[in-house]
């Protein structure tokens, strides 16, 4: 774990020395790819895992593996403790209470949970308190043009099923939300507003507090896609004043197969369930079932227990390193990427220009070379980046592209790696025989 002797270090970004020490905790980073040292710049897709996270999962299976919330034997109690302690740890990490954090498979499953629950509230006979989530003809669900498909398609489907209308806040040429257009889109018809905290393509950081206030002013429920923020910024769902937030463990040092939904307790307890079955009920007859309160209400079936244990280890690792310091370090890496990319002829960076706030990632277009070819060339140099539309086709279409190349950093990336990436990018157009600006 990272430790520094001088206290004042804890305020600024991580230092290169600390990052080199952090890298020792991530064995996968130390390897050769295609004859070159691996430069992993695809953490926006999924992060690498520190030893402590892998050990937490292994320790669970070696010492405590058992089903949770059932059975009276000692291991079952131990496993339940691990599972619920993990919930407390992850909930505290985002500023939520224990009963406000529901485990899901990933962020996509979380967004579907919310959308399907609202859908269930919109059809047939539901409890009076569930009616507040109902949408139908004349109602609007609002998203933005920069959403990941995971925060777009479930809402399209909800609207299709219920007859509600989907609207979106457009973005501007620099990738920022058009706040003027936004102001006109929030009306008394707006029932749900779901948007991303940080764009996984442009790195734009949306003004969550302001947007949540605009939504609440018209009585809409606010859902935050925190997939690209929870891993990188200190997140506090109460301070942001959102009603729901979702994130994925695998993007924040934890294993695949686990994510979470935060929901305000009084909302979660009033919502109809999505998946139903065992572990989420109180009394079941042949005709009818009554449901547990949150979070169990939304956790039908056997849960990802070892993953929860490892998720807690992951957020502990992040907390001990310091989220503010991680954010500051990544912001510096992001600026270094953008400034470096802008200096290479024929490169267009998507999103805000150098010097403007962005997350530690940069997607770009190489004039004359398709993103797929760019990614292939970088891979030969050992540099792992993502190519394609990054599950954000409408955003790419708006920026006049079908695909881009994206480099995304995390706490374990060094400035030397960003420089190696930039040097490789500079070689792309010459390799493919493209000249000029």
């Amino acid at each position, binding site marked *: 774990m990272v430790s520094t002797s001088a206290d004042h270090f804890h305020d600024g970004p991580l230092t290169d020395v600390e990052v080199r020490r952090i890298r020792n905790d991530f064995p996968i980073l130390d390897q050769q790819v295609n004859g070159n040292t691996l430069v992993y710049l695809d953490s926006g897709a999924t992060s690498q895992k520190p030893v402590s996270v892998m050990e937490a999962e292994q320790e669970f299976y070696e010492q405590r593996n058992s089903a949770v919330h059932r059975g009276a034997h000692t291991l079952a109690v131990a496993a339940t403790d691990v599972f619920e302690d993990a919930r407390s740890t992850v909930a505290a990490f985002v500023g939520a209470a224990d009963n406000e954090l529901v485990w899901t498979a990933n962020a996509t499953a979380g967004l579907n949970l919310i959308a399907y629950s609202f859908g269930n509230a919109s059809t047939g006979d539901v409890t009076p308190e569930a009616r507040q989530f109902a949408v139908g003809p004349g109602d609007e669900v609002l998203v933005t043009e920069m959403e990941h498909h995971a925060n777009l398609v479930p809402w399209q489907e909800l609207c299709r099923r219920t007859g509600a209308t989907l609207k979106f806040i457009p973005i501007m040429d620099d990738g920022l939300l058009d706040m003027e257009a936004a102001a006109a889109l929030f009306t008394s018809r707006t029932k749900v507003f779901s948007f991303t905290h940080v764009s996984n393509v442009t790195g734009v950081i949306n003004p969550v507090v302001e947007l949540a206030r605009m939504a609440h002013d018209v009585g809409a429920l606010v859902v935050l896609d925190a997939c690209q923020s929870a891993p990188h910024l200190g997140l506090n769902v109460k301070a942001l004043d959102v009603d729901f937030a979702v994130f994925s463990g695998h993007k924040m040092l934890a294993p695949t197969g686990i994510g979470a939904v935060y929901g305000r307790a009084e909302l979660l307890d009033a919502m109809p369930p999505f998946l139903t079955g065992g572990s989420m009920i109180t009394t079941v007859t042949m005709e009818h079932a009554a449901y547990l309160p949150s979070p169990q209400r939304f956790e039908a079936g056997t849960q990802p227990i070892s993953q929860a244990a490892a998720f807690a280890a992951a957020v502990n690792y992040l907390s001990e390193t310091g989220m503010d310091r991680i954010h500051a370090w990544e912001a510096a890496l992001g600026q270094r990427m953008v400034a470096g990319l802008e200096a290479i002829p024929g490169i267009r960076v998507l999103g805000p220009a150098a010097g403007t706030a962005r997350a530690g990632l940069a997607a770009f277009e190489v004039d004359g070379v*398709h*993103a*797929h070819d760019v990614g*292939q*060339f970088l891979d*030969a140099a050992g540099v792992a980046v993502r190519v394609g539309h990054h599950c954000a*086709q409408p955003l790419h279409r708006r920026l006049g592209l*079908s695909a881009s190349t994206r480099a995304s950093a995390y706490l374990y990336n060094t400035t030397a790696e960003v420089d190696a990436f930039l040097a490789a990018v500079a070689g792309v157009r010459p*390799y*493919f025989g493209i000249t000029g600006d």
Partner: protein
Amino acid sequence: MSALDSLYQQIILEQAKARRGADLPNHQLAGEDLPAGTGQCHQLNPVCGDEITLRVETSGGGADRAVSGIHWAGDGCSISMASASILSELVVGLGAGEVQGMIDNFREVMRSRGKMQADEEILGDAAALSGVSKFPARVKCAMLAWVAAEDALRQTA
């Protein structure tokens, strides 16, 4: 030759720029009212957004059916564009059965994970795409135009 250089041979980069056969007009993209003996197919690789609409024109019937023209419109990486360009050059004038045999052979080479050497006698310039078979993520790019041609050709039978 490095693996990268074997993927991006000069002939591939040239073909990707030349885009031979990429002259399908916009108003024909929808593929409506196809004349007899003409087939058309749209293929999309959702992973990277590579896209092609390819039209096959044939003349003659029965055993004499032959490809008389290939026209396409598309957008994608150099592998997919070069592959479409090479295909357009190769198959015009060949019998339908011969073209299908060529497509089958090309597919086999592409799926071989680098184990099968392309036969230039059969595949002509498309043999230069053999290097792609060592990059499983790119096989779809190389196959895109060929899959479209196969489907379009079938429509003309």
